[in-house]
């Protein structure tokens, strides 16, 4: 009850700080708009950050070559040819994380304007965000090919009609050709003729692709800013000490754990509100702005649970900062480094797949990385709670670690 009183008082103070409210709630939305747009242009990555993509080309035809050239030219990937049996064996032993299979009839099927299926197989332990990034690049190149094929097929059809029926020549005016091309363009967008089927051997069946590029920014920025509330917790404790009210709280008949709980509770509440606002904006606002809008995946309640765990971790992080920082400047410095710096490296703005190439296992010591992984798995890949157990446990582990160090170093005097 006394913890609740402290929490309510802190929320009351926070509501009077307009600058802080803007930073907590408005700034993330601005970032999402900017970075959703920027990430929408993914596929034009730099040469130096290419991911290797093992390819089993069972077709060997012209269309397959166009696809492979397109993937290499996209910038994010570097294709490498494998024999099917070899690739299968290496995937099973996890020597390679994933492979793309181009079916034997790919050139024939695409040239006839029929639906062709590419298969992207990932190892169960493959990095989810990395796989998602690879899939997005393949989808992008395949869409372009699909569009090109459909427009060419359409024009070819019109040419055949013209050749067979010269008396109807007048029918094919410039306007008619443009109209037909536009119609094909829209059809290609709605029903692409090349589809990417993603499979994970350990899972049953095949899942349809989810078009969710905007979500990379939505979940990433949500995680970044929810961890940013750690600064609010740290500053709130610092302010209490600075004005002397902390002494007054220590002199009141309440335990130190109740006092700290009271200081932590607002962070959890604010974090959950932030997630609600950001995801609501991501789902509805981005759609209104014409950008790709995410969904909450197949298990929205699991998303809520993960958000709560992230809020707990962020709060414990705040206690840790409050314990180790002695001045207001130190709080700012530590927050910049640990919250914003690691938040960015942990996959806030750029899919981890690209950063992973530089940092390797280092990213695994960043709590934001695990938070992003968990949300991406649930929202981007439509996985369930069981699939993010590791991420949740790691986040809870970080929470416990931060809290123990925070309590150990906390200066109640």
């Amino acid at each position: 009850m006394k913890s609740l009183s402290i929490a309510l008082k802190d929320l009351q103070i926070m509501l009077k700080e307009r600058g802080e409210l803007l930073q907590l709630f408005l700034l993330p939305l601005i970032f999402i708009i900017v970075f959703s747009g920027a990430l929408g242009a993914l596929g034009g990555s730099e040469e130096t950050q290419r991911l290797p993509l093992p390819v089993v080309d069972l077709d060997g035809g012209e269309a397959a070559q166009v696809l492979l050239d397109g993937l290499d030219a996209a910038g994010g990937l570097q294709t490498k040819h494998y024999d099917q049996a070899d690739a299968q064996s290496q995937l099973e032993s996890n020597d390679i994380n994933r492979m793309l299979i181009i079916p034997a009839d790919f050139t024939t099927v695409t040239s006839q304007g029929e639906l062709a299926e590419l298969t992207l197989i990932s190892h169960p332990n493959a990095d989810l965000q990395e796989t998602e990034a690879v899939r997005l690049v393949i989808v992008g190149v395949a869409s372009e090919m699909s569009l090109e094929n459909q427009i060419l097929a359409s024009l070819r059809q019109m040419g055949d009609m013209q050749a067979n029926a010269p008396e109807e020549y007048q029918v094919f005016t410039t306007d008619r050709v443009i109209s037909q091309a536009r119609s094909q363009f829209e059809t290609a967008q709605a029903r692409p003729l090349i589809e990417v089927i993603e499979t994970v051997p350990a899972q049953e069946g095949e899942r349809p692709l989810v078009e969710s590029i905007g979500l990379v920014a939505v979940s990433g920025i949500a995680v970044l800013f929810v961890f940013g509330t750690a600064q609010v917790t740290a500053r709130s404790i610092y302010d209490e000490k600075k004005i002397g009210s902390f002494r007054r709280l220590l002199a009141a008949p309440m335990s130190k754990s109740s006092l700290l709980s009271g200081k932590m509770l607002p962070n959890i509440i604010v974090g959950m509100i932030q997630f609600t606002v950001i995801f609501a904006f991501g789902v509805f606002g981005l759609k209104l702005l014409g950008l790709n809008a995410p969904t909450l995946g197949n298990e929205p309640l699991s998303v809520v649970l993960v958000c709560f765990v992230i809020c707990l971790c962020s709060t414990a992080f705040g206690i840790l900062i409050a314990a180790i920082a002695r001045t207001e400047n130190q709080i700012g410095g530590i927050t910049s480094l640990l919250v914003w710096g690691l938040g960015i490296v942990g996959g806030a703005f750029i899919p981890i797949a690209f950063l992973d190439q530089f940092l390797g296992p280092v990213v695994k010591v960043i709590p934001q990385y695990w938070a992003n992984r968990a949300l991406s798995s649930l929202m981007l890949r439509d996985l369930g709670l069981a699939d993010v157990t590791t991420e949740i446990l790691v986040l809870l582990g970080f929470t416990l670690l931060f809290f123990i160090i925070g309590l150990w170093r906390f200066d109640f005097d």
Partner: protein
Amino acid sequence: MTPILEVDQLEKKYGDFSAVKGISFSVEEGEVFGLLGPNGAGKTQTISMLTGVIPPTSGTARIAGHDIKTEMNEVKKVNGLVPQDLALYPTLSARANLNFFGRIYGLGGSELKDRVEDVLRIVALTDRADEAVGNYSGGMKRRVNIAAGLVHHPRLLFLDEPTVGVDPQSRNHIFESVMRLNRERGMSVVYTSHYMEEVELLCNRVAIIDEGNIIALDSVKNLIAILGGGIIYIGLEQVDDSLLEQLSNLPAVKEAILSPPPVVPPLAEGEEPMSEAEPVVPNPIVKIVAENSQEAVVNVISFLNEEDRPLTSLEILEPNLESVFLHLTGKKLRE
């Protein structure tokens, strides 16, 4: 009377530094007790230990029969703390601040509302209770600071330098509030200050504290009586033991001593100490404890004129706690 507070060998150490050096004292129920000492003397540390803000290194205290080491939660219900800092939330109103501090003492509903109104009346801020504290003057903030320590009706109130930075009007208001609380509600008060006038005005008994030690503890009247009729400082060109003895024997003079004490000059490296080396007294000042300061001044000056010893300075201190502190420590309270 039963003591509401009994302090027994209370000590606080930080590494090798002792902030409070095993002090003992007691405060009776309904008493206003003063802790007088300069900044850094150990007053706030003492209060912090007694209110559960910091743990003592050794020793203990009992408040309303509860041991601060084993029953701090019970002790905290009895205590009220008005810290030296303005421990208030500046963006919240006075009423919101008081509601919050009441709630953390377990108050709620109509009881909390009534208590808040009551303390607002005591500090005369009912009319402006809904304004943000940040907009208040320094004196008004101090009054809210006191109200926050009173809202749960403590039996023992610790006031830690409550008048620092306060205008005379608000200071008087604070004095009146403390006296009313003591007189009308029987509230016991421990009042720390380095302003001797406040302690003289408010406190029944005073402990003079310096460098973590209590160097004197008695009623204000008895403490001042240590000085008799006051202190006279006279500057002379030369002072010797026979002169000090002659001054001590003058009528109305209780004691004459050298202040500061003589200093033996340090030896240069390799220099042998000489048996006949005389202590050096830079600008010798003689401190005279008088039985009656006016009569003693007349006698001392007449005697020095007769002896043809010119005065280089003269200072007469009226008998009060400031001069008691100077007499006991050789330092001024506000040094």
